[in-house]
């Protein structure tokens, strides 16, 4: 479904990503981990079109999407959430999600009527378990609420592939389990392929089927959670010092 | 024709020195207070009028009236900070921009009310040097050397004193400068005072060269903007270099075409740089 071919990205001479090649199949639930500054978010920014790679290509459903604008990529069916939630603060929570419905993936276009769009938006808000009313503004939500809003807005664009960026950061233990179960349900019930970046590795390892590890902008491991946690280089770079 | 161009280029370099001084002040204010001082050129205009009033109407010697003007402009800078900039420090950038643009209207029309729309100049005739086929105005030469000296002193101030260091630190990260014990409010006042004083100095150097009228300032604001943007906003070294580039480009193109076309060319450069590389074309950074 998604294929990265030799992606590199430099910031003023510093390499954030070096020759990264990854393949993700339809229906997979992939975790992407790595220490701080290893290039995870940069990779997401490149896939979603916010950044252009210095070299390499991004292929999606066999089509070259390198360097397309983010809105174009969203229309093709790739949605993302942001590491630091970026709600539109002057729009209500429902309006935030309605934007996704209105401007998202065109293939399943809903005829424009305020009511239709609102119902559609509420559907996604319900799915992620965020119950709000008409007038709730994003700044009234807490950390968990904002994460849910991010997910609902991304889902509202009706993606085939979801890039989830640190959905768990800022949450406490109870909230962790719940938020990660939502991700699982998105994959299982909606059939959306997910790539999940996370720095809370414990929660991720329990859920995903495959883990890719980045370190200093390079892929150092790719395999099932059990394989990866046994990998020498991963332990060296990451897990080893933790325990 | 070729000689004319060379001569224009030389004049451009001489002019560039003063422009560098002007741009330095704008740049310093932008770098430290993070504010685009829209009414900066109008300070020069007011300084010019002040010198005019003191020398021509009150018969104060030029040097002394220049010094008075420099101090007065520093005070005006402080007042601007106190009355306009400080209340808007946490406001959206555009509100700051528009309030300072409001100052343009106030200053220009105030000058109009007091001095009317006539051109005023100081009757001071300095010799023109002939070197071979080239003509260099002595007043330009003085302005150039004076500007370079001022810039040198500014460099020493910024690099050798505690307060200079605090200014440079504040430019990079106000919040951390504060927790280092820097009183940022004081630093802002010092910066605006220094920026104001610089416009006074520029006015003093320009008195023998130009005549003044109420709308005299805006062309200097625009010129200073162009230089600052070309060199990269907040980049003092870049501003210094691009002052000479702009000085040469405008005076050479003024000789080849007309003064308006020269201004149009400068504006086009400005727009292009803003579009393509708002961080400036000179990729160096130094404070």
């Amino acid at each position, binding site marked *: 479904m998604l294929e990265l071919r030799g992606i590199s990205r430099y910031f003023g001479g510093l390499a954030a990503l070096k020759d990264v090649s990854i393949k993700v199949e339809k229906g997979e639930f992939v975790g992407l981990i790595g220490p701080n500054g290893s290039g995870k978010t940069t990779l997401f920014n490149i896939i979603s079109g*916010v950044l252009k790679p210095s070299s390499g290509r991004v292929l999606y459903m066999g089509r070259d999407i390198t360097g397309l*604008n*983010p*809105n174009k990529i*969203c229309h093709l069916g790739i*949605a*993302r959430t*942001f590491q630091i939630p*970026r709600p*539109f603060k*002057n*729009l209500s929570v429902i309006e935030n999600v*309605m*934007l996704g419905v209105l*401007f*998202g993936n*065109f293939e399943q276009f809903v005829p*424009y009527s305020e009511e239709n769009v609102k119902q559609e938006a509420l559907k996604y808000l319900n799915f992620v378990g*965020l*119950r*709000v*009313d008409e007038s709730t503004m994003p700044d*009234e*939500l*807490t950390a*968990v*609420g904002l994460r849910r809003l991010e997910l609902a807005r991304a889902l509202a*664009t009706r993606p085939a592939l979801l890039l989830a960026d640190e959905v768990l950061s800022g949450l406490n233990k109870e909230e962790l389990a719940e938020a990660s179960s939502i991700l699982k349900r998105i994959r299982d019930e909606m059939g959306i392929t997910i790539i999940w970046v996370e720095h809370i590795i414990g929660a991720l390892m329990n859920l995903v089927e495959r883990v890719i590890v980045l370190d200093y902008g390079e892929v150092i491991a790719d395999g099932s959670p059990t394989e990866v946690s046994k990998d020498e280089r991963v332990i060296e770079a990451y897990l080893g010092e933790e325990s | 024709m070729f000689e004319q161009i060379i001569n224009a280029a030389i004049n451009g370099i001489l002019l560039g020195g003063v422009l560098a001084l002007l741009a330095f002040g704008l740049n310093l204010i932008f770098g430290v207070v993070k504010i*685009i001082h829209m009414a900066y050129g109008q300070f020069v205009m007011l300084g010019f009028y002040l010198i005019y009033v003191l020398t021509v109407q009150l018969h104060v010697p030029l040097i002394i009236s220049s010094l008075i003007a420099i101090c007065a402009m520093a005070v005006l800078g402080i007042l601007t900070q106190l009355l*306009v900039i400080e209340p*808007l420090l946490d*406001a*959206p950038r*555009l509100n700051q*921009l*528009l309030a300072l*643009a*409001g*100052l343009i*209207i*106030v200053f*220009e029309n105030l000058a*109009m*009310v007091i001095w*009317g729309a006539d051109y005023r100049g100081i009757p001071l005739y300095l010799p023109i040097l002939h070197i071979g086929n080239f003509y260099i105005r002595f007043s330009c030469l003085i302005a150039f050397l004076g500007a370079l000296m001022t810039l040198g002193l500014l460099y020493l101030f910024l690099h050798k004193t505690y307060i200079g260091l605090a200014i440079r630190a504040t430019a990079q990260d106000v919040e951390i400068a504060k927790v280092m014990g820097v009183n940022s409010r004081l630093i802002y006042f010092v910066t605006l005072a220094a920026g104001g004083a610089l416009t006074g100095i520029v006015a003093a150097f320009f008195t023998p060269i130009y005549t003044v009228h109420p709308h005299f300032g*805006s062309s200097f604001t*625009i010129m200073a*903007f162009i230089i600052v*943007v070309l060199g990269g906003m907040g980049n003092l070294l870049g501003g210094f270099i691009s002052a000479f580039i702009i000085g040469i480009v405008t005076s050479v193109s003024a000789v080849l075409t*007309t003064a*308006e076309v020269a201004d*149009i060319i400068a*504006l*086009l450069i*400005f*727009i292009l740089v*803003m*579009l*393509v590389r*708002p961080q400036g074309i000179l990729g160096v950074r130094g404070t």
Partner: protein
Amino acid sequence: MKSPWVKKLFLLLILVLLVIFPAASPSPYLVHIMTLIFIWAYISTAWAYMGRFGLVSLGHGAFLGIGAYVTALLFNYFNLSPWIGMLIGASSAAFLAAVLGYACFRFGVIGDYFALVTLAVGELVALSIIALRDTTGGSLGFTIRNLGNAPLYFQFSNKVYFYYLSFLFLVFALYLWVRIDKSKMQKALRAIGEDEIAASSVGINIIKYKMTITIISAFLTGIGGVLYAQYITYLNPHTLSGVEVSLAIPFKAILGGMFDMWGPTIGTAMIVSLEEYIRVSYGTKFIGISEVAYGIALIVLIIFLPKGLYGTLKEMKIFKNERRRQYGCNKRKEVILRGR
């Protein structure tokens, strides 16, 4: 404004009053002032189309000048009726806006950078008009050929026609504002104004919407230039283009409050009245004193009422409801947090 019904009746009343105003007015001078208010209110409303979405242009003088000059030059030199010339003039303004907008949006020039670029463009157009002095008359300006009463050539011996005409234009601009508010575009532009990256990641085509609103705004402003030039039958680069006009337009809108559809109109009414009042009471003794007062008023207003006069008043009026709403929600927020 208790109910839509009362509000509609109130609007209708004002409409009727404005329509019969010229007949009832004690002096043509008042009609003249009202006409000026309509024209500038129309222009600053057109400006606020962009401004309220964070696209603050300080170069609308460019569009005003191009609209006016192209139309007037076509009339003076080729005898083309300003009714047709106006479309060409406004299209030229829109074309410049399209080129400028595309360049800015392509390279991601936003916020105060956008303001500075447009400021430069406004000045550029003014300088070009001066530089082309052989055709445009340069700084001295030029006068539109007088045909007496020639409605087909946008000239009326009775200035009352201009009153009604500019009134219609203003009503049209306000109507368009409402239409935009009900469209999908308004939602997109609000999102873009807040966070471009997030907006594009939910599929909003940033360049398309920003271009659309910029072109609409420039086209209407271009027509505004024609309206003003035809009314006073004289063009000058300093009154139609350049920094001063370019700043005066947004100032009017901001003074009233650019986020509300009535803001620009109210701001314009205030400034034009203030200018006229000072001019009449002090005459020509202190040329410029009214501008000084206006400049100071502006700075004070930006500092103390950043949402503009009308915007702030309106906010205060609904403030109580607003609070209650938020309070109610805070309670519910607890439910959202703890309930699950």
